[in-house]
Structure formats: C-alpha cells, structure tokens
C-alpha cells in the first residue's frame, strides 16, 4: 500500500506539472456534450434516460484519453525498467495507476457534470448523493479494466487506437448499469428502486479490480 502511494504521488505530481491528461479529458468531454446536443437537435428537451446516455457517453469517451497516458508515461526513458527491477510488486503499480485514473476521472467529471446540468438540467432531478455514488462506482470499474488494458496496449504499436477497442466491449455491462441507474436518478425515482443497479456496478468494480490486480503482473512484465 505504501508503495502504491509513492507511485500515486509521483504520477499526480507529474500531472500537475504537465496538466495535459486532465485538461484534454475535460475539453473532450465538454466537446462531446456539445456534439451530442447538436445531434439530438439543439433546444430539444431530453427525457431522463436519454440525458443519462448523453452524460455518460461524454464521460466515458473522454476518460479514455487519460487512460493511455498514465501507463505509457512509464515507458518514456524506460522508467518501467526502474520499477520492474525494484522490489515494487506489479500489483502495487496496478493499484497506483488505477487510483490515478480514478482521480483524473473524478476531476474531469467535476467539470463535465455541472456543464451537462447547465445544458440539459431542465427536466432532470438532481440527486447529488446517489449521483456521486454512481460516479464513484463507475470510476472504479472503468479505471480497473482500463488500467489493465492500458498496460497491454502500451506494449503494442497501436497504443492509443487499440485501447478503446479492447475496453468498451468488456465494460458494456457497466455502461448499461450506469446509464440505467442515472436515468432513474434523473427521473427522481426513490433510491430503493434503483439501488440494485448500484449494487451491480459495485460487483463489476470488485470483480474486475480483483482480476486486474491478479493479471497485471503478467501484463507489466511484457512491457
């Protein structure tokens, strides 16, 4: 755990200096919100479920931009060799990188979601606490699978192109759960009626964070 924190701190420091991952995530997210608003017809009132879809597509697609960077920065100057020869277990690197991705997503969501409400908030109930829970659970699942796959794609010659191709098919259930849950939140349905979706999201996050934790060892050694 201590080692993961060391790596996490280092990655956050690097991001504070470069700022490129989070800023491009935010920018692309807002861009997607705008593009999709145009696609459905500007000024059209959206129902809660459609609004939920628009929000999550923006967040998911923009988050992929950050994913690729967090792992591939270790490949510059072969820093990854420095980690591999050290006593740091790859699973600690997995925990660190997953947390980094988790935080980057959280920061960009903190900007994208308010912008979304400004654009489409009219018909929507704002349930802040359940929405926050949804965000955290989505980030867990997305960051876990994403980190595992970013380790794979960083070692291929098609890094950035390949990552979304591998990632999105695997997380389709997570996307389905998230869009459903958020749709109900936006519709102002009582918590009891959609809590099942959140539990499923949590299950997805747990299963794949464990799978990633176990499999990352093999992936990282191939880099």
């Amino acid at each position, binding site marked *: 755990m201590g080692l993961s924190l060391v790596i996490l701190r280092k990655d956050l420091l690097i991001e504070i200096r470069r700022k490129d991952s989070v800023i491009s995530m935010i920018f692309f997210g807002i861009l997607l919100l705008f593009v999709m608003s145009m696609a459905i017809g500007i000024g059209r009132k959206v129902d809660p479920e459609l609004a939920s879809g628009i929000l999550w597509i923006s967040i998911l697609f923009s988050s992929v931009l950050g994913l690729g960077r967090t792992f591939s920065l270790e490949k510059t100057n072969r820093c990854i060799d420095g980690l591999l020869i050290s006593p740091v277990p790859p699973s600690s690197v997995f925990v660190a990188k997953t947390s980094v991705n988790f935080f980057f997503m959280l920061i960009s969501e903190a900007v994208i979601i308010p912008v979304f409400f400004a654009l489409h908030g009219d018909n929507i109930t704002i349930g802040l606490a359940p929405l926050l829970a949804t965000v955290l659970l989505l980030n867990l699942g997305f960051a876990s699978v994403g980190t595992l796959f970013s380790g794979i794609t960083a070692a291929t010659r098609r890094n950035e192109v390949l990552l979304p191709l591998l990632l999105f098919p695997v997380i389709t259930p997570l996307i389905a759960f998230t869009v459903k849950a958020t749709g109900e939140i936006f519709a102002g349905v009582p918590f009891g009626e959609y809590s099942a979706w959140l539990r499923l999201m949590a299950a*997805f996050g747990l299963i794949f964070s464990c799978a990633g934790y176990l499999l990352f060892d093999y992936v990282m050694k191939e880099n």
Partner: protein
Amino acid sequence: MKDGFIDRFLVVISTALMLTAIYTIFFYAPTEIMMGIVQKIFYFHLPMAFMAFLSYFVAFVCGVLYLIKKDIKWDIIGSASVEIGVVFTTLVLITGSLWARPIWNTWWTWDPRLTTSFILWLIYVAYLILRASVEQVDRRATFCAVMAIVGFIDVPIVFLSARLWRTIHPVVIKSRSIDIEPAMLTTLAISMAAFLLFWLTLLRIRSRVDFTELRIRNLEKIRRGGM
C-alpha cells in the same frame, strides 16, 4: 503422422454426421405448426451458439494454462478456439436474425440472448484485433491469455445485464417457447453431436496450422543460424 490420421478420421466422421444431421433436420423432424419451415434454422442456431460458448470457455482455460505454464501450445489452441468462436457467433447472429424476421417481424430485437451474443462477438473480435497488433510471440500470447480470461469473466455479467435491461423495460416481444417433440429432440441431439465433432475438427486443423508454422520458423532459424 498419427496426428494426420486422426485429423482425416475426424474430417470423415464429422462430414458423415453433419450430412446425417442435415438429412434428419429436413426429412425426419416434423415441421413446426406455428412457425413452419423457418423453425428448422433452430437446429443450426442452437448448436452453433453452444459451440461458440464452448470455444470461449476453452480459450479461457487455455489462457489460464498459458499464464501458469508459459507453454506456447496453450496460446495456439486458445487462439484457434477464439477464431472458431467468432465465426460461430457471427453465424449465430445471422441465423438468429433470419429466424427473427418472419417470427418476430424484425431483424433485430434486444432480446437478452441476442444482446449477449452481440456483445460477446464484440469482445472476441477485439481479441482478434489485439492479436493482430502484437508481433512478438510471447508477448502476444500473454496479452491474448489475459484478454481471453477477462472476456470470459465478463460473459455471465454481460448476460445478466442484458436480461435485467430487458425485464425492467416493458416486454414488447415475448419469445415463444418452442414445444419440443421427441422427434425434434432427436434431431437436435444429432445436430448437436455433428456440430461438436465439427468444432473439434476445426480446432485441431486450425491449431495444426499454427503448430506447423512454429516448426517451420524453428527450422528456418536453425538453417540460418546453425544451432
């Protein structure tokens, strides 16, 4: 050359069985009253869906074995299995669609099983794209093993999500349960056996291509370098 003999034997047997299955389907099994001749597609559809699933399971097992043993054999069998699985999944989607058109009056519905097949198709096509993107053999094998494991872990979750998604929605189209007559059941069993053997034959022949390629590469290396 014992392997070659087994392969030829398998080809002969599975061809014979497949012909028998086709004969049974069209001349022995009674035509379903409600759906008519279209229902016969079911004798292909179901076994193929089953074989697709079997392929992914085999790929999962091979993936685990590869990561433990690091023997390239498991990579070859696993990837051959995924390739066959993708072909069968594609055929499942097509036959399902063909059946749905006259029966449900649409090419596509978000029926849980259909949706699951579609997502599985996406996952394992991604596997094939990944496979084509890595050249170094050990690395490719490791990554593909990981992808096969992750993909298979996803299968039950995908199915669950597809089902829950539907049941909460109003059910527009209810899938009619198919009354199975004994003759139909026999037909299905024969077809199932035929496809199982066909699958095994394909798997053996497909992996043998890769094994041969591996041997050729080693021979070339010896010729070039002199061991």
